């Protein structure tokens, strides 16, 4: 059976060119970059070059890039690192209700440590209103963290505007750019961000490596204590193959970004239009225009997400759902709840996230298969029966 992978927001396949770039750093240039001999210095040279490439791609200086183990670490590092470094100044953090758990959970942890966190609501498209952020700022606010684009519904947040606001108030501004680095043009100066998180495996790089951009002069406590790696900010022997792979992935992304955005936007809109026009009682979640080029998130009334996901998987199509039944909490997605979806609509959501390997044939196949699956599940749904009568 042909398998179609439409879950690129969860993770992407590692590009073969990235794998090739990484390979020598496992078996040939395997030295520890902290070592002074030639083995170590070869590896050191590779990570510094990688730092240069990654920094340049977002308008940052090389020394402003810290390599981490991924998005979750970068977000934890930021939230806790800023909170503990600036607790003399204040104890208030502002974030949104639709952040990734890797931001929300560190915030909940800090609440238990005596910090105060404001979770800004979003409108029906999932947009944060900068005016709400402004109103929430107090003289105790030390950090604002708003994601660049939402991983579930694809909505792009007004980061530059919020960043400008934060800067005028002297508050650090962090953005979780896990869904956008390598997918959209990005410049930390245009975005007015002080700190930015990203992850390798979301941009056709390897898993287990991420970055944190930290603007020069920003104070944060180290997340990992140990050796003096990464200017003493993040101890741990460098993941040299991972770092090399990350930089290669960024390089490739930048080369192909223009035509990639164009292709994905076309396929995204075709899939959205196709679903909404061929299946009744469906709606698009997230912003219709201000959204990631690869994100399609729809709610299909009267059917539950997991049962659709399993049926699609049986037809070779991989996607994801915000239904409670796939999470361990049994609560439906906090993002879909935040945009005002009822429990049933949140349970009936599907996310298709397109990628570099997605073709128009793949989209046509989904559009050919999905209506039948929905029809089958609706025929056994007690909710559909009531509505139709």
């Amino acid at each position, binding site marked *: 059976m042909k398998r179609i992978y439409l879950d690129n927001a969860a993770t992407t396949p590692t590009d073969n060119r990235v794998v090739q770039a990484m390979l020598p750093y496992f078996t040939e240039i395997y030295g520890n970059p902290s070592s002074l001999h030639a083995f170590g210095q070869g590896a050191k040279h590779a990570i510094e070059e990688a730092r240069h490439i990654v920094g340049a791609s977002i308008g940052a200086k090389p020394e402003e890039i810290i390599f981490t183990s991924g998005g979750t670490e970068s977000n934890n590092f930021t939230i806790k690192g800023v909170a503990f470094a600036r607790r003399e100044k204040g104890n208030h953090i502002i974030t949104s209700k639709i952040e990734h758990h890797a931001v929300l959970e560190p915030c909940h942890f800090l609440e238990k440590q005596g910090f105060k966190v404001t979770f800004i609501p979003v409108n029906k498209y999932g947009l944060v209103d900068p005016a709400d952020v402004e109103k929430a700022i107090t003289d105790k606010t030390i950090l604002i963290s708003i994601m660049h684009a939402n991983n579930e519904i694809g909505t792009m947040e007004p980061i530059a505007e919020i960043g400008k606001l934060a800067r005028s108030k002297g508050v650090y501004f962090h953005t979780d750019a896990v869904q956008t680095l390598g997918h959209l043009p990005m410049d930390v100066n245009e975005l007015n961000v002080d700190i930015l998180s990203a992850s390798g495996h979301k941009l056709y790089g390897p898993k287990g490596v991420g970055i944190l951009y930290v603007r020069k002069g920003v104070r944060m406590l180290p997340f990992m204590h140990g050796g003096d790696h990464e200017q003493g900010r993040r101890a741990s022997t460098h993941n040299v193959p991972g770092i090399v792979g990350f930089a290669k992935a960024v390089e490739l992304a930048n080369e192909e970004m223009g035509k990639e955005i164009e292709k994905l936007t076309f396929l995204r809109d075709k899939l959205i239009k196709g679903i909404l026009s061929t299946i009744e009682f469906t709606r698009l979640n997230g912003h219709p225009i201000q959204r990631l080029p690869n994100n399609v998130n729809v709610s299909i009334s009267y059917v*539950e997400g997991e049962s659709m996901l*399993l049926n699609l998987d049986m037809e070779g199509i991989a996607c994801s759902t915000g239904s409670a*039944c796939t999470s361990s909490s049994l609560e439906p997605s906090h993002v879909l709840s935040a945009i005002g979806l009822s429990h049933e609509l949140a349970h009936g959501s599907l996310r298709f996230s397109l990628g570099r390997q997605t073709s128009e044939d793949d989209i046509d196949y989904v559009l050919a298969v999905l209506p039948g699956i929905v029809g089958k599940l609706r025929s056994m749904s*007690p909710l*559909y029966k009531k509505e139709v009568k």
Partner: protein
Amino acid sequence: MEYSEKVMEHFRNPRNVGEIENPDGVGRVGNPVCGDIMELYIKVEGGIIIDAKFKTFGCGAAIATSSMVTELVKNKSVEDALKISNRAVAEALGGLPPIKMHCSVLAEEALKKALDDYRKRSKIAASVKAVKGAVS
């Protein structure tokens, strides 16, 4: 989380989907948090459940447990059907992931409710009969 082969088999080919016209008992249960909603219909003759059908809005486990519970109650006496526990449903499916056990609870509740409904209906039917008998 992984489903057993048996769960997937019932999910792929659910048994007894639909409604029964003029049922003798209906059980409708729902868990608003998890989002599963289950309707179970039974037809009873001479104290034996001769037919059972279901309609379910829910995840793979919810559909599979609905399908299994209809299979388990068919041709059982009302008394025996009352003894079917959520564990029995889960076991008949080759087990459920721990997080999905609540789906089997839902199936048991739907069954209990349908049987309860049957008892109420038969009581009413019996008293209607008695009243009719007294009048004639």
